């Protein structure tokens, strides 16, 4: 049985969905979350709550997601394979569902060497594909990974990430298809700056029939500075930032304004691509940019009336 989350309904109705991102604090302070949630409320259909993103220890996604629910905003909980084994994962999945969390994004996770605890052990008991399958079977069979029956199934709308820019490129759409086979309902892509390549990827997804079984949300992010553009181009694995974008940011007089403009242009272009069911706006530590972006792009949350 499906959870009937807001995101699920918007996408099922064929409306253009908008999701955003909310990073939990590196502290035990719930107020940070409350404030961010209030910025995004009414603008996004659902917000991703990151899970120790880039291997930096933060308040866990589940707790932050509950706080977000209490603010009247729908969370998409994230779970990586880096920090938990299958026992902990299944426990958290049951717990999340019990707390009323209805969306779960299943990720492999950035390697622990990137974060602030590089000496920690990377668990990687499962990978994103087997995690997806496990969640689907917990929801639909319903059973634990070991095969035992679950008497009260967790109902979750299952998502995953897709990266049109990673290598090997010919395999990327196929890998998304693999995740669809494993059981995802939706996916969010890596941040798009190279629209041509993304379009090619989407074309392959349509050919494979992926778009009929899975809702694809295009990832976008406003650049805050030329430095950020360069950093993402050179230092972040799996990102494709064309030189023109870096040059535009470098030449801009009001960088943040330009960053928002770039983002808006990309949204306009990707909306036209066949198979794109929504956008996922990642304004990291700049949640306030989301309303502005949506306004300039003429976007409203699919759930807004």
């Amino acid at each position, binding site marked *: 049985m499906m959870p009937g989350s807001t995101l699920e309904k918007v996408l099922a109705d064929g409306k253009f969905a908008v999701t955003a991102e909310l990073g939990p604090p590196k502290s035990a302070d719930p107020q940070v979350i409350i404030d961010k949630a209030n910025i995004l409320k009414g603008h996004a259909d659902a917000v991703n709550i990151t899970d120790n993103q880039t291997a930096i220890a933060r308040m866990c996604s589940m707790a932050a997601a509950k706080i977000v629910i209490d603010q009247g905003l729908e969370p998409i909980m994230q779970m990586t394979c880096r920090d938990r084994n299958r026992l902990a994962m299944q426990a958290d999945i049951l717990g999340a569902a019990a707390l009323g969390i209805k969306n779960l994004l299943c990720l492999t996770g950035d390697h622990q060497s990137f974060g602030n605890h590089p000496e920690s052990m990377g668990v990687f*008991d499962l990978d994103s594909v087997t995690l997806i399958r496990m969640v689907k079977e917990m929801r639909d069979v319903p059973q634990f990974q070991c095969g035992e029956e679950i008497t009260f199934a967790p109902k979750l709308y299952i998502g995953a990430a897709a990266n049109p820019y990673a290598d090997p490129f010919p*395999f990327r759409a196929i*890998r998304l298809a*693999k995740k669809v086979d494993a059981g995802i309902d939706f996916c969010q892509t890596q941040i798009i700056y190279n629209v041509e390549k993304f379009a090619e990827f989407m074309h392959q997804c349509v050919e494979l029939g992926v778009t009929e079984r899975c809702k694809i949300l295009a990832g976008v992010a406003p650049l805050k500075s030329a430095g950020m553009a360069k950093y993402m181009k050179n230092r972040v694995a799996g990102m494709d930032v064309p030189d023109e974008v870096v040059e535009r940011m470098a030449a801009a007089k009001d960088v943040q304004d330009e960053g928002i403009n770039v983002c808006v242009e990309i949204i306009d272009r990707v909306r036209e691509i066949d198979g794109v069911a929504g956008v996922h706006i990642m304004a990291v530590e700049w949640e306030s940019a989301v309303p502005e972006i949506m306004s300039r792009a003429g976007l409203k949350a699919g759930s807004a009336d």
Partner: protein
Amino acid sequence: MITAERKPFEQIKAVTDQFENILVVGCNTCVAVCLTGGEREAELLTAQLRLQREKDGISGTVNTVTVLRQCENEFVDAVAAQADGKDLILSTACSIGPQLIAERIPKVRVAPAMNTNMLAVVKKHHVWSEYCVACGDCVIFSTGGICPIARCAKQLLNGPCGGSQGGHCEISPEVPCVWQLIYDKLAAFGLEGNLSRIDGPKNWSKSNSGGPRTMKKEGFEP
């Protein structure tokens, strides 16, 4: 082979400075083949220790002997007599060596001179790469003869992850993305379609995670 790297001298010295008569025991199998702990290296370390102790005014002796392998009772027993009168045995073998020495020559303290690091292949002279982590359940036939557990930073069975770019792993441009290699290998055989199959989750109970392992064999017992 098992590879090991010699510990930084300060770490070794921090231990050896506390002892008077030291026997440096070399090993002429794995660590000799990877050029870090064989007789040549054991002799070199011995020369260094002697010079350092003379300079620092530490009394006592440093001697050396090398055995063919330190993971074998007979070879360790063959030099047990040379440990008489010694306070410390410093082993340049992989960690198995000093552990066996500690068992077979129980009255003498034992210290490792090496950090054991990998089960490795020789890429070329002086370069060794990790190819196996002894997971106990080898699946490399399906991945074109390439191990995704040892050579993928995230041990993916359904890789690659989104961090694979230009054929290398997100953790370093010097680390190849093994799933790129697997993809290329299977594609060369026209088998890239196999990668749509979902594999796993892995049975980790057969690896060291399931507990320290013992292998037994049936056959003629002496």
